[in-house]
């Protein structure tokens, strides 16, 4: 039985939420930005996109494209709440929901159709109506026999579209479709395919796999399959996702820092954020990494240190990060800092044999309990008191509505 996969993509998600919140913004070119002074455009409304405003542009670049662009500082909690509610609606139709990002998801409705809903279009229309009714938002939906084609179908009509690619239509749809339209084929791969005389998916599907394998290595075979519209990857619900390989946080600083003590304050904060999330989900890690992006934005540095034992106490992470920092000479002021714990061990909660370690763990537990009850950073290391920005302010692409990837954003 062919699978039936639905792909849902919320249209200009953050910008649409802001336009719903503030009626004065509806129908106008707006761009959602972060609260940090060094922010970039995270989403542009469709009205702004018409002028060429794109995600990732600086405010200056956006304003250059559209003089009347209205800038709106985003409210991450509004977006994570809305996304979680929409994902919850999706679960009313199938347990097989894969959250791809905060505004995109795949649903495998193959088995929902046989007994409950006659056609996948019915599920799509019901979801569209419920999302519109609850939040005033629109989404584009693609329905196809696999994830690759469902995403492709969803991209075909935006905003507020519904496109179905039926199994019998696949080869016709693929024949003249430019290869760059497929998810996973970026500019570089497209240029390399063009060199081989491949411009359309039809050409890609017919091209000798042997040559693709020689040119692209192991993905050569996958490219050939993509050209034919074949994709066997399953829709993976949250509970079946692979365990995360690392826990990390990073932050762009309000101003470049050169002074070691100033840098340490932010490293302590990041260590606490990493440690707290690791402890909340009972994971500990053996490898600590420090990532630094310098003031020129182009130069960066990353180094890691593997320890003798697994750790998740914030001060242990902090100490490891300091030793990495002190092992290098900073060539420029620092713009961005990141701390990561990897080489993870799950479900470990072992009390140390040593009195001092045991007391430290109990203090951390007491702090975590207080912060769980009253909010993050209600009780904190004294060294963090003067930090202006505390907590995560950016929704990571890996954000999920539940589990260890569910980072509480400000």
């Amino acid at each position, binding site marked *: 039985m062919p699978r039936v996969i639905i792909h849902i993509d919320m249209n200009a998600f953050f910008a649409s939420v802001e336009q719903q*919140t*503030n*009626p004065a913004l509806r129908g106008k070119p707006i761009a959602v930005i972060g609260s940090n002074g060094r922010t970039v455009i995270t989403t542009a409304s469709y009205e702004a996109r018409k002028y060429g405003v794109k995600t990732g542009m600086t405010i200056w670049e956006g304003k250059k494209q559209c003089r009347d662009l209205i800038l709106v500082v985003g409210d991450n909690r*509004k977006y994570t709440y809305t996304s979680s509610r929409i994902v919850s609606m999706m679960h009313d139709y199938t347990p097989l929901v894969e959250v791809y990002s905060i505004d995109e998801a795949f649903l495998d409705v193959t088995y929902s159709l046989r007994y409950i809903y006659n056609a996948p279009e019915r599920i799509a229309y019901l979801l569209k109506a419920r999302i519109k009714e609850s939040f005033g938002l629109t989404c584009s939906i693609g329905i196809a026999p696999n994830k690759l084609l469902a995403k492709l179908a969803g991209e075909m009509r935006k905003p507020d579209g519904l496109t179905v690619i039926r199994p019998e239509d696949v080869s016709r749809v693929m024949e003249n479709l430019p290869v760059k339209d497929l998810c996973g084929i970026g500019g570089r791969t497209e240029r390399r395919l063009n060199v081989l005389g491949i411009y359309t998916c039809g050409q890609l599907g017919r091209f000798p796999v042997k040559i693709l394998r020689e040119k692209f290595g192991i993905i050569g075979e996958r490219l050939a399959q993509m050209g034919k519209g074949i994709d066997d990857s399953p829709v993976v619900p949250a509970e079946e996702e692979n365990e995360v390989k690392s826990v990390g946080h990073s932050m762009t600083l309000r101003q470049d820092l050169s002074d070691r003590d100033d840098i340490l304050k932010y490293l302590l904060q990041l260590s606490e954020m990493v440690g707290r999330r690791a402890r909340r989900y009972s994971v500990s890690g053996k490898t600590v990494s420090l990532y630094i992006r310098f003031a020129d934005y182009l130069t960066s540095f990353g180094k890691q240190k593997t320890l003798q034992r697994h750790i998740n106490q914030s001060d242990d992470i902090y100490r490891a990060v300091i030793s990495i920092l002190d092992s290098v000479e900073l060539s420029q002021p620092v713009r961005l800092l990141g701390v990561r714990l990897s080489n993870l061990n799950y479900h470990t909660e072992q009390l140390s044999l040593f009195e001092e370690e045991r007391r430290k763990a109990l203090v951390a537990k007491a702090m975590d309990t207080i912060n*769980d009850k009253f*909010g993050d950073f209600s009780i904190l290391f004294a060294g963090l008191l003067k930090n202006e920005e505390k907590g995560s302010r950016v929704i990571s692409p890996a954000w999920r509505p539940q589990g260890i990837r569910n980072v509480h954003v400000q």
Partner: protein
Amino acid sequence: MMQGIPIRVAVIFEPGKKAMPVWFQLNRRQHKVLETTYFWKDKVGETPHFHYAVTDGEALYELIFSPVDQSWTLYRQQTE
């Protein structure tokens, strides 16, 4: 921690539906809620907060309801 001004709000509580602000008082003036434009929830620690973006036709307001102490605060005001 979220800071806001405590305010008086008239609300309709209806079984099975979320509370609906009807008017609120700010600077001794009563503002009629013409539309609740958006609603969302978040938590500070264990305390849930219900956010209402409302308009009186002149400005946009963000009201927060805390079900723990049944209090309403005005968190943000933005002239349209």
